[in-house]
């Protein structure tokens, strides 16, 4: 019962978009973008009940997604463009002067699909809490989804929001953590370990769903649907999405050094050779 019968063709194409965008402007964040392609595909093409054609900055009664780790704009923009929020060709303007596709998501530039700026880490969950509680006031049963980096969970504001959501039972919220154990300076375990993250969320009164194969589209769709089925039961839901940074390209996969580094010409050629052009490049 997939909504998009060719959904499995998206990940390879989105990965091509990501490496081409970052290569073209010689800046941006390919690592976390490549690692979360299956999440974005599953969310935007399967889970999210939202109308890309009728986007309004203020909610009109639909599911809302908030990207908290704003640096992974390549995957965010590519997925939104391919879902129909804006023209595919606009991906070519990524990070260029005058573009609506800012380095980190902005509202100021009017890109359809974006409702809050992010980039300075740790803020998205709080914003989602305002939306989630606003939805309850509006008697709107749609859900709020967020995505966070695991490194981002080192920010204190995240834990303010985690405490609040659990204590107040904000149960129309699904917060996903890109659990790739990688941040700019190295492994999360080495820089500042999160310890037992599942136990931490549970101690804060959250329900936790683990998706062990975060780069397997079927597994991600199944896991997110399970998370969705657990909403409305008095607790917020956390998804621990186990991914590999740089997934899909052999020389990038699992290497934290690709957090914010563009590919050179030779690397781009090698990368594209590993990624079939399934739906047509932008």
């Amino acid at each position, binding site marked *: 019962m997939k909504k998009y019968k060719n959904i499995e063709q998206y990940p390879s194409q989105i990965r091509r978009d990501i490496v081409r965008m970052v290569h073209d402007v010689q800046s941006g964040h390919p690592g976390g973008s490549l690692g979360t392609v299956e999440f974005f595909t599953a969310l935007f093409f399967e889970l999210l009940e939202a109308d890309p054609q009728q986007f309004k*900055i*203020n*909610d009109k009664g639909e599911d*809302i997604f908030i990207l908290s780790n704003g640096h992974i704009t390549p995957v965010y923009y590519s997925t939104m463009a391919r879902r129909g929020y804006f023209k595919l060709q606009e991906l070519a303007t990524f990070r260029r002067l005058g573009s609506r596709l800012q380095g980190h998501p*902005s*509202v*100021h530039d009017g890109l359809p699909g974006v*409702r*809050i*700026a*992010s*980039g*300075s880490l*740790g*803020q*998205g*969950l*709080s*914003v*989602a*809490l*305002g*939306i*989630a*509680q*606003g*939805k309850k*006031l*509006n008697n*709107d049963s749609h859900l709020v989804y967020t995505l966070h980096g695991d490194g981002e969970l080192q920010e*204190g*504001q995240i834990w*303010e*929001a985690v*405490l*609040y959501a659990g204590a107040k039972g904000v149960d129309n919220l699904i917060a996903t953590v890109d659990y790739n154990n990688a941040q700019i300076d190295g492994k999360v375990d080495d820089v500042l370990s999160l310890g037992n993250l599942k136990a931490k969320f549970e101690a804060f009164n959250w329900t936790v769903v683990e998706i062990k194969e975060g780069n397997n589209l079927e597994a991600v769709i199944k896991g997110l649907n399970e998370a969705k089925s657990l909403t409305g039961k008095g607790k917020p839901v956390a998804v621990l999405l186990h991914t590999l940074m740089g997934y899909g390209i052999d020389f990038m996969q699992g290497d934290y050094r690709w957090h914010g580094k563009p590919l050179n010409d030779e690397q781009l050629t090698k990368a594209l050779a590993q990624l079939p052009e399934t739906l047509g490049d932008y």
Partner: protein
Amino acid sequence: MKKYTYTEKKDTRSGFGDALTQLGNINENVVALTADVTGSVKMGDFAKQHPDRFFNVGIQEANMIGMAAGFTIEGKIPFAATFAEFISGRVYDQIRQAIAYSEKNVKICASHAGLTVGEDGATHQALEDLGMMKMLPGMVVINPCDYNQTKAATLAIAEYEGPVYFRFGRPKVPNFTPDDQKFEIGKAVVLNEGDDVSIFATGHLVWPAIKAAERLENEGISVDLINIHTIKPLDETAVLNSAKKTGAVVTCEEHNRLGGLGESIAGFLAANHPTPQSFVAVNDQFGESGTGDELMQKYGLDAEGIYKAVKEVLAKK
């Protein structure tokens, strides 16, 4: 000079709280957030009358700011309130990204601003907030002078679509402005017309400025006295017309002289009509414990300080 009188001293924070309760009754989109200081910021009545629209987030100012930004996406008009220090510097990055840059319709309500918070001391005395907030593109910055004006301003900012930093305080001060005033954002209020010197005052300094003006007028010095309740956008027309008329300017504020109203006016006049200016403000210092009155006197933020500043600037004319 027109005689200004008052029947009662009242705190500006109560003007905020009373207007917010009123707003709750007339506008169902208004939601209120605070961080464990419900009574101090006078949100108790709103909380009682509209419990479903009242959110005490606990001691989590950063989370509160993010939540407020989120509420706007659902069409709400969030009024988020705590002490000025904790809703400015402490959460500057959150305000910058989630409210100002994201162009969200949040009312950032900053109570207990300035030296007059008193005995709590410098940790609680926000003297840099106006500067920080006016530097954010698109942020409106308002600092009313008494209970009635704070009440009117609270109602006005609910009607305005966009981010507002709204600053008020704890002490009871003369309530002299009209009960039925219409508050116009960005429109200065002329309290007295004169030719010799311009006094631009904001917030708690407006009343002492009236007292100083009365003394000066008695000495034959004609004072153009203007209440600048909106720091940003600055009423440039009012400032320019007054400076052209008098050729001497005194600015008065409960704030660091760096970044405040005085600096805004100096910057504007330097580019448009260079005019000698004296600053009644805290001179790049932190405050300290004491009563509000003692502190305002010690740091020269009183009628005497304003009087002296006028004498000083007149000597430069």
